[in-house]
């Protein structure tokens, strides 16, 4: 079982997730604010941190930044209910391995956590749509060919995720292995984190993903 740490400033939601994930993940700690989260995560050293994007005192971004500095091996999965796209993109560019919405089912959440633990990326349909939108083709000479464009295969994978398919279904439809789908999504995540496309920031400010 994945050693999991939960960070959310809504106690009710925290309690709900804890109950739902009982038996599917080993919850080593919870925290409701930024400072508490940073010190407890450093102490308990979980494998995955499920973190709310919006919290008082700097939000998930502050926790992510502080923890990654001292414990780069800890992986983050962002979770949110109603945040502007720019915050979500900021989390991902700061190193979060993925993003899911709070409406996600318990099964899907458990699967997403395991996937993040294994080093893969997790995209919600909206995030996939956002990436497709932000990396839309036909733009004048991107600065870095490799980082600023999606391959046709990656585009196909993202489109299927945006249409609501799970990785396994995506794999079946494209006659790929699940492992290959995962590696495509991870490659897209890397591009999303490293791309210098100025459109990313702009898109993020006028769109919402969730």
């Amino acid at each position, binding site marked *: 079982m994945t050693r999991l740490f939960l960070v959310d400033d809504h106690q009710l939601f925290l309690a709900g997730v804890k109950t739902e994930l009982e038996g599917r993940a080993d919850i080593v700690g919870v925290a409701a604010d930024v400072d508490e989260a940073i010190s407890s995560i450093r102490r308990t050293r979980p494998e995955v941190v499920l973190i709310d994007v919006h919290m008082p005192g700097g939000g998930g971004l502050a926790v992510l930044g502080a923890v990654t500095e001292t414990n780069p091996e800890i992986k983050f999965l962002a979770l949110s209910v*109603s945040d*502007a796209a720019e915050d979500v993109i900021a989390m991902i560019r700061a190193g979060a391995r993925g993003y899911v919405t709070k*409406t996600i089912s318990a099964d899907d959440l458990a699967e997403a956590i395991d996937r993040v633990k294994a080093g893969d990326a997790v995209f919600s*349909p*909206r995030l*996939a*749509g956002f990436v*497709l*939108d932000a990396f*839309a*083709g*036909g*733009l004048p000479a991107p600065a870095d060919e490799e980082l600023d464009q999606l391959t046709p295969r990656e585009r196909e994978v993202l*489109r299927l995720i*945006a*249409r*609501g*398919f799970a990785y396994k279904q995506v794999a079946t439809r494209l006659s790929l292995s699940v492992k290959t789908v995962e590696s495509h999504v991870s490659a897209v995540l890397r591009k999303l984190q490293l791309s210098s496309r100025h*459109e990313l920031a*702009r*898109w993020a400010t*006028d769109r*919402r993903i969730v």
Partner: protein
Amino acid sequence: MTSPDSRARNDWARRLGLFRRRQRRGIAGVAGGLADRFGVNDGYVRAAFVTTATIWGIGVLIYAALWQLTFDIEDDRPVRTIDSRQRLGLGVAFAAAVWIVAGAGLVPNAFGTLVVATISFGLAALWDRSDSPSLARVILPGSRGALSVFRLVGGLILVFAGLGLLFSSVGAVSEIGFSLLAVAVTIAGLFLAFGPWMVRLAQDLGRERRERVRQEERAEVAAHLHDSVLQTLTLIQRSEDPRKMASLARSQERELRTWLYGRAPVPGEDLLSTALEAAVARVEDERHVAIDFVLVGDATLDERGRALVGAANEAMINAAQHSGAGRISVYLEVDQEGAELWVTDQGKGFAKARVPSDRRGLADSITGRMVRHGGTAAIESEPGEGTEVHLTMPGIKQAGVAS
């Protein structure tokens, strides 16, 4: 602050309740601290210091001594007031002391002291803002008036008496010079008397305007929350059917999201996304399903776009009615070539060969609508594998593209 000496000094000052103000202070906060200690307006304390300063600089010496002997402290500490009778007593005692010292000829310049005392206490009375937040309150009848009016009139009399005294002491000027001086003294007196009030009036007006704007905003938010969120919460509490509850909550969530994060609609520009979003909302509300709507690109709404939305609407209703799935995905992508739209459910699906005749009709209505406008529709389904309706509409005009 940490040396034993200063700690002892602080103890001494603390026992007497003496301290210096950190904020709203003139020089070192000594006068302000004393004023807070005794619950009088700091203007009078400053006037007392200024007056005694004219007598061998006693006021300056006392000020310097208190500066050294007391510690400074943040504001907002409880003021230890004394009651009005004690305050009056203090004032009378001070006046008597000045009077006796000056009258007994012990003072180097008794006249100067008198003039300074009159003017400074007059100004202190005029500027005393402890219970007159604005000029209007003082002048308008019915406001908390008597004391303020008394202070206003008394202050004016003192200031002008003082200026008059000062003026009368100026000897040997010509008649023209004399009247010019009189005018100057009057103007100076009026400025001293009403200047602070003018400034405060302007500040109050600005503050009131800001406050009004804030209140209007708050009222708007409250009205919106009342009309939407509170109503929905009431409906949810009265509803027995969990599906209906979920659907109410979801439609309220959608509405609140649009209100909080939505882009303002551009007048005169109907977008494909807006029309589709409305259709999604309608199906969610009427059929009690959750629809995940993902959008890539957008287009201005034309005949073809309307046909696409109509067909998508049919597909969504179809999925809601027959698939048994609680969640439907709608994905729209618009690029230079046109629009593509998928309506996907993970429900029970069906075998194409055994579609009941009424559903074939529905499929025809989706396909027919698309074909009539130059598009295509493909329906894919396997029993147990869910259903996917794939619509394409070439030649739709792209809108809002990053270029």
